[in-house]
């Protein structure tokens, strides 16, 4: 067992608790937070692939020493294959996702510390707790453990919004909690139904119970559990009908907070989407619903983004719309489609964070995010304007940037799967996404500066520009060498597609 696997969750939790204790000690918070945040992307790089068992041991089939001397009632039945511990699985896909999450978290935390005059320990606490939760969500093979961290992630999301001091943040956070009060217990109910029927909360064991015939896969209780889990997937990732509140949440957070929150949503989407595909892929309706909801998210998210006048809300809706691309990849159900969808997830996390932090410089300088009141910022910050323009190109899928590769793969996958209509819709949506971006870019940077617009902070911190350059470098790297990402995803994709190419 590699001890670095549990440390990926434990380190951010310790950081969070430690920062909270240091509340109001500004310099100490800054130094410790940056040092510890730097560890986040390093841990998955250093850790070896493997499993970690919390509070138990490996299945008896994998550990002959333990099974020696046990009665045949245990060793001669399916009990020997069950996972008695909370199991964390660290493979190629997890390595990539946790690295990207750590990188975005590090850059968002760094930007927040340099853009805030008095760094808040509470804000740092929320960000680190969110990262710890999402890391656990990506690692765990235990669906109840997943639920626990799903709830902590929701609370951390609310916390990031609550401490933002953006007008209307309390009301939006309260609405998010109320809607979470409907969706989260239903996820727990779905898990309870699965536990009741299969006697297990370990996902691998649930699957083996269904495949071996120990449990009837068409049992109505299992169908109900699947419906409830799918519903909570909509809430966790911000798919319709939760797209309105999710985009509102992004708009009421500070830009660096929103950059991290959208990463939480994307990885929750991916993690729960993978669980749904693993357990319920034998139900054709599950893939149809994933496709339908993703299509709806894409259409509603992107068309609604076009109508917004607040930059943060606009990119909040765009982030929801971009989730649709990932869902279409997963819903196609082929290995190539799933790889493309997961690749798009990685790209979306990076590009949306890039855009939130890039346009966040405008909010930092002016305290304004309404495009009707902005203009002329190109003269003030030409370098940042160029970086933001490149981020917009990346989101629209312009070569040689990363989303070009993943969107091309998605279109190819949809044609291969016999659904070229999806490819047509994806192209159409990419064009509208670019148009939405250009609407914001023109209003903020290229239009003459309104007389009443006041510049509160002339100088953008070097840390923010460094973060934008890092995002750009990664976008170009993944665009030129897509196999750097897809190589980590193929094993998972093939297993999710049931061995089909």
């Amino acid at each position: 067992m590699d001890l670095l696997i549990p440390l990926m969750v434990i380190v951010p939790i310790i950081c969070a608790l430690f920062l909270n204790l240091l509340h109001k000690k500004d310099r100490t918070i800054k130094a410790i937070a940056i040092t510890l945040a730097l560890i986040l992307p390093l841990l998955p790089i250093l850790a070896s692939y493997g499993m970690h068992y919390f509070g138990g041991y490996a299945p008896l089939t994998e550990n002959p020493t333990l099974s020696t001397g046990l009665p045949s009632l245990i060793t001669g039945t399916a009990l020997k294959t069950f996972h008695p511990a909370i199991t964390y699985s660290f493979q190629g896909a997890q390595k990539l996702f946790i690295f990207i999450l750590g990188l975005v978290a590090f850059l968002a935390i760094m930007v927040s510390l340099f853009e805030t005059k008095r760094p808040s320990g509470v804000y740092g606490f929320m960000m680190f707790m969110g990262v710890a939760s999402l890391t656990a969500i990506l690692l765990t093979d235990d669906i109840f453990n997943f639920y626990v961290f799903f709830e902590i992630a929701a609370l951390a999301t609310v916390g990031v919004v609550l401490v933002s001091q953006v007008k209307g943040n309390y009301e939006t956070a309260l609405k998010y909690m109320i809607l979470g009060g409907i969706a989260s217990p239903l996820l727990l109910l779905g898990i309870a139904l699965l536990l009741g029927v299969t006697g297990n909360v370990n996902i691998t064991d649930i699957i083996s119970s269904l495949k071996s015939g120990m449990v009837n896969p068409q049992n109505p209780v299992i169908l109900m559990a699947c419906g409830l889990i799918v519903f909570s997937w909509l809430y966790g990732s911000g798919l319709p009908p939760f797209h309105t509140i999710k985009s509102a949440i992004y708009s009421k957070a500070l830009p660096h907070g929103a950059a991290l929150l959208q990463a939480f949503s994307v990885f929750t989407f991916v993690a729960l989407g993978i669980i749904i595909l693993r357990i319920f892929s034998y139900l054709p309706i599950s893939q149809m619903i994933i496709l339908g909801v993703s299509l709806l998210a894409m259409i509603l998210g992107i068309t609604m983004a076009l109508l917004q006048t607040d930059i943060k809300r606009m990119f909040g809706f765009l982030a929801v719309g971009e989730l649709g691309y990932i869902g279409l990849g997963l819903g196609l159900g082929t290995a190539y489609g799933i790889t493309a969808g997961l690749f798009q997830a990685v790209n979306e996390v990076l590009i949306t964070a890039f855009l939130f932090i890039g346009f966040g410089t405008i909010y930092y300088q002016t305290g304004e995010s309404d495009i009707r009141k902005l203009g002329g910022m190109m003269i003030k910050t030409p370098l940042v304007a160029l970086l933001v323009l490149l981020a917009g190109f990346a989101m629209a899928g312009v070569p040689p940037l990363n989303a070009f590769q993943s969107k091309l793969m998605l279109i190819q996958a949809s044609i291969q799967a016999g659904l070229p209509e999806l490819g047509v819709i994806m192209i159409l949506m990419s064009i509208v996404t670019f148009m939405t971006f250009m609407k914001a870019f023109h209003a903020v940077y290229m239009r003459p500066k309104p007389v009443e617009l006041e510049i509160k902070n002339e100088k953008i911190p070097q840390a923010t520009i460094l973060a934008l350059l890092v995002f750009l470098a990664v976008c170009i790297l993944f665009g030129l060498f897509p196999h750097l990402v897809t190589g980590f995803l193929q094993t998972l994709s093939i297993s999710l597609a049931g061995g089909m190419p």
Partner: protein
Amino acid sequence: MTFYDLIVKRIKKAQEADSEGPVTNVSTSAMLTAEITLISSLLVALIMLRLVSNVLMIVAVLVVLFAAILSMPLMPRLKKEQNDSLFNMTFYVVLALTIVIVLFYWGSLNV
């Protein structure tokens, strides 16, 4: 008056009723683009019904096309529905839950 002018006029009227500030060229063209995107993507998505039945696909495309043209502009109404009201959000959340459960329960048992 051309068909295009008619659509733009109706969009401007709907935006004025929405009273979110002055109606500008940018806001009108954004609304028009969103309208065209919504309808065209829905129609393209409906073509996928060919996998079920070609006749169903043709009927569905024609019905949606005529319904969309007759009830234009759709986007101002859609925007109004997708506001930040907790009542609206809760309504759609409950509606979505019902649809998902019905689809999974009956969709899986009877398909």
